[in-house]
């Protein structure tokens, strides 16, 4: 008998190798869990890239303060009855570099924009320069709903029911002089409201321009709403340009200044990459972007690509504006 007593029989003692193996097993399991979740979460983090937020459908979507509907006098369908792109997509998939370069950034970041009160100045080659208050402006013109195709230069497209009024009605009111050959537009410049302006990816403020005959074309509108409501910030509140036969970047957002000029005005994307983005930027399946094809597009919400139409399907109405012009040269 041992004096210590109660010694377990040898058969009950865990062999040292098994004991060590058990410890080893637990250790390995923990290391496995830590390593696999570390690798997995690193990869998920890299997948997010520079985006402001991960995709969470509809979350944090900026909605206009004023949710009341706009009074729309007339409805026009200029998209041949094609199905409207969902409100969710129209308000969560935007190129608006003032709020970030990912298409989900504007919906996440545009809450800092204060679209009300807002003033729009119209000046330059006009007989009656004016400063309009946005509310006054919206009341001054009968609003129309215009359903237009919107073709982005990145080869995707939407169908959007805009609410607005023809730009020509606004220009008529300020009486362009005979020297007014072009119309120059300017967006708000305020890095506090537009955090993307703290980067110098584009020159700020965003500027765009049209030839006077393009600006006076009845299809060219100033939009103040979509889907019957005021424009959400990420779509260019409170007022933006819509030129349906041109690539989307011509549709300058959150406009504060319109100047009629004798000379062709500079335009933001043309300044940034002159060989890729021209002044005209008419939708043209025959003229490729230097780095990608413009022959087809994906309608957001659809699976198959569809052919891109010359002038985005508005050739009957607008091709005459460019008669005799070499559209490869004036892209």
């Amino acid at each position, binding site marked *: 008998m041992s004096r210590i007593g109660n010694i377990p029989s040898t058969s009950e003692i865990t062999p040292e190798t098994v004991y060590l193996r058990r410890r080893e097993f637990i250790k390995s399991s923990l290391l*496995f869990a830590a390593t*696999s979740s570390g690798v997995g979460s690193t990869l*998920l983090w890299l997948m997010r890239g520079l985006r402001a937020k991960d995709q969470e459908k509809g979350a944090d979507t900026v909605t206009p303060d004023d949710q009341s509907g706009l009074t729309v006098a007339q409805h026009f369908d200029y998209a041949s009855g094609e199905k409207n792109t*969902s409100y969710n997509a129209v308000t969560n998939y935007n190129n608006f570099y003032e709020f970030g370069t990912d298409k989900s950034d504007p919906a996440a970041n545009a809450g800092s924009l204060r679209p009300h009160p807002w003033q729009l100045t119209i000046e330059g080659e006009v007989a009656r320069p004016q400063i309009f208050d946005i509310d006054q402006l919206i009341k001054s013109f009968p609003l129309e709903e215009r359903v237009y195709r919107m073709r982005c230069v990145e080869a995707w497209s939407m169908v959007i029911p805009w609410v607005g009024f023809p730009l020509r009605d606004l220009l008529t009111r300020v009486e362009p002089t005979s020297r007014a050959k072009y119309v120059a537009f300017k967006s708000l410049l305020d890095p506090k409201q537009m955090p993307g302006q703290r980067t110098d990816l584009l020159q700020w403020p965003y500027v765009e321009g049209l030839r006077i005959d393009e600006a006076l074309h009845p299809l060219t509108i100033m939009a103040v709403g979509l889907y019957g409501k005021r424009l959400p910030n990420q779509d260019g509140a409170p007022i933006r340009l819509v030129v349906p036969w041109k690539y989307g970047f011509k549709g300058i957002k959150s406009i504060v200044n319109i100047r009629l000029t004798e000379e062709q005005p500079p335009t933001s994307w043309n300044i940034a990459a002159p060989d890729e983005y021209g002044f005209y930027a008419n939708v043209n399946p025959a003229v490729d972007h230097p780095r990608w094809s413009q022959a087809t597009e*994906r309608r957001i919400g659809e699976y198959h690509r569809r052919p891109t139409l010359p002038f985005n399907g508005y050739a009957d109405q607008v091709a005459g504006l460019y008669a005799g012009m070499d559209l490869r040269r004036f892209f």
Partner: protein
Amino acid sequence: MAVLGRKSPIPWLKPAVLTGSLVPIAAILERAWRDDLGPDPIAQALNQLGLIALVFLIAALGCTPLKAMFGWTWPMRIRRMLGLLAFFYALLHVITYTVLDQGLDWHAIVDDIVKRKFIFFGFSTFVLLIPLAATSTNAALRRLGYVRWKQLHRLAYLAPALAVLHFIWRVKLDVREPVAYGLVLAALLSVRLVDYLHDRKAMLMRQI
């Protein structure tokens, strides 16, 4: 190095890295299932698969520098797997482009590859990876002989460089993200270059 026939001292490493590496494809499939890949889900899946392929190409290239700089040997144990994961994600990226994005319109696809340098460089990256994946087995190494196998696998330096160019040229304006990957790649390649020059110098010294 592990002695032949003995068990790996870190048996959990490969399964753990593999499990974590399959998280991106699981996440993409899960989001696709919930219709949560955003308004343009095909573009989203395409971009993310391509990005992960590039991450693995760079990670595979990082193994030797890690060994050179810190004396770690564990990265070498997973290098082949990282390379194969790069090929796996590149293959999914190419399938997404040809099948989902282009709808197997071969005319448009060939046109893209021939005319657009960004697609040409992406396509070239994928083509380079095919022989590397095909000769990734021990049997292939024996068949080719180490010297020729090593020569062939030098393509692993070229592939991520082409992939970074593919990424840079695809981006409309904001090149910060692709340039960041380019810088990481450049750093890894320069470690390799310094290493190579050092080895060569040592060899020359011995010859004298």
